[in-house]
């Protein structure tokens, strides 16, 4: 906002300003066209699915088909079941991460203790480690323990995605919280536990909400874990199945499933837009 003085082409109607607007417009055409195209494809009738026209007779038929899996060749993809299990797995994963992660984040944000750095570093390294390094042995372990394609198994492995996010974001919130507030509560005779629940916790509520929603989004968008560790237990895996391996592909159904699968993350992302930068950078950049 404050920067407009020194930016290239800051005056409203100069040539560079117009050039800048054209450039930004070009990016957004490129950026939004695929999404618009997916929505259009999802609204086309089966007969129109292979056409490239922009004029068509919109129908909600595809959404109904996708959600009820009525089509004869489509009974193998139970998208509704995938929606349900994705929701349960991701909610479960976020709840576990919050219950386990908030105390750890508070400990790491409040006190410098031996091992805190290595705990945090190890958590972060999961964010960057190639997932298969863990998933391949897990695949073998899960098959042995009967955890393959189970809710517990998915919630456990999704911690790889949700835990580092929750702990790292919340640690930076707890660090930013002035310690005087809790000290005042302690001097008033509150126990540390009550000072935490009555003073610290309510103040980091935005951070908890933001990290929980972001963790949910990333868990929802994850593809590799359910691909390997379940049969069809996620929205992301189910969508690719509409593309069909056996010759016939259902473009309109794929698009409809894509729209349904993309909606939850998009809605959640728009509600936490203010905290997105901090969340996406694990607290490295404050938004």
């Amino acid at each position, binding site marked *: 906002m404050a920067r407009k003085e020194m930016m290239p082409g800051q005056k409203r109607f100069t040539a560079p300003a117009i050039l800048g607007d054209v450039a930004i417009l070009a990016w957004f055409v490129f*950026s939004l066209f695929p999404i618009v*195209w997916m929505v259009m494809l999802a609204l086309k009738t089966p007969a129109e699915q292979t056409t490239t026209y922009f004029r068509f007779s919109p129908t909600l038929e595809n959404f109904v088909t996708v959600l009820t899996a009525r089509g004869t060749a489509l009974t193998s993809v139970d998208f509704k079941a995938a929606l349900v299990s994705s929701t349960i797995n991701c909610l479960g994963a976020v709840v576990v991460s919050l219950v386990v992660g908030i105390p750890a984040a508070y400990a790491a944000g409040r006190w410098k*203790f031996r091992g805190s750095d290595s705990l945090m570093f190890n958590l972060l390294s999961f964010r960057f480690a190639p997932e298969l*390094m863990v998933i391949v042995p897990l695949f073998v372990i899960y098959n042995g323990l009967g955890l393959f394609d189970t809710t517990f198994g998915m919630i456990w492995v999704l911690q790889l995605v949700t835990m580092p996010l929750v702990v790292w974001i919340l640690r930076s919130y707890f660090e930013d919280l002035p310690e005087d507030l809790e000290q005042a509560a302690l001097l008033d005779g509150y126990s540390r536990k009550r000072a935490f629940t009555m003073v610290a916790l309510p103040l980091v509520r935005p951070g908890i909400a933001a990290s929980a929603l972001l963790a949910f989004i990333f868990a929802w968008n994850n593809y590799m874990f359910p691909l390997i560790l379940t049969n069809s237990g996620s929205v992301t895996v189910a969508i690719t199945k509409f593309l069909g391996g056996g010759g016939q592909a259902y473009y309109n159904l794929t698009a409809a499933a894509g729209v349904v699968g993309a909606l939850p993350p998009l809605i959640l992302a728009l509600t936490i837009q203010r905290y997105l930068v901090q969340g996406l950078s694990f607290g490295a*950049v404050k938004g």
Partner: protein
Amino acid sequence: MRSADDTVGGRQAPTVSPARRKWRPYILSIPATVILIGILYPFVQGVGYTFLNYRATEGDVHFIGLGNYLQVFTDPLFWGSVRITLTFAIVATALETVLGVIIALLLNRSSLIGKIFEKVLILPLMIAPVIAGVIWKLMFNPQFGILNHIFNLGSTFDFLSEGRALWSIIMVDAWIYTPFVAILVLAGVRSLPKEPFEASAVDGAGWFYMFRRLMLPMMWPYILVAVIFRFMDCLKVFDIVYVLTQGGPGHATSTLQVNAYINSIINFNYSGGATYMFILWIIVYLTAQQLVKLLGRAQARAAGSEA
């Protein structure tokens, strides 16, 4: 700051023993540590696989020392995979960084268009990469795809042909992740102090001089954070590649993680896949170390230039 318990300790809550206070952070971290170990255990086991001849079809699983590594390092497919992965990671990261910085600077001008578009900038970033891959796969289709139609390419032009697939995937990656760089850099630009720019404007400096000498050094830490995240993620790219080409045509887009997936999950060669992954993990780890060092230096320098 961190030792408030000690300073207040004498006056407050005498019921809490010093020992208990000392152990509190550890007790609070126990649950997280348990989960951590639950994930570290398979990781260690995966490293163990690289020294075995572990396949689902192998009856006699035993220690074979560095056999897997010897096999991998003499396999032209592996080196092809390394080349493809590095090409992808370097080109995609560079492209996304340059475009992201440009977009951030353009959006920062607070024009009306910028204000409107800032809201929708993150849409591709929040859609699952798999769904993004699926959309683009539909658009890339030579017969029914919209792109061949719009650009009048005919039905023989294939975006996912052996020669073009890697570049098409880089474009899809840029479509998803350029907004990531843009919003990080934009947040950085907005947090910069105003005074140095006003001062040099008074001195009559042109915008390019200011950009080069003031803005870029101060923005550098933010750009580096974005580069670190992008480069690390690009090295282990899987989702969009697997959806768009499954590593093909031939081996044209078989990145390390796609290759490891095909090896271990499709062909049940657990040891082979794990070896690929452990080598990739070492590459990621060493690169991360260097980049983080670079970031520390850049932050120190930016702090200096602000003073």
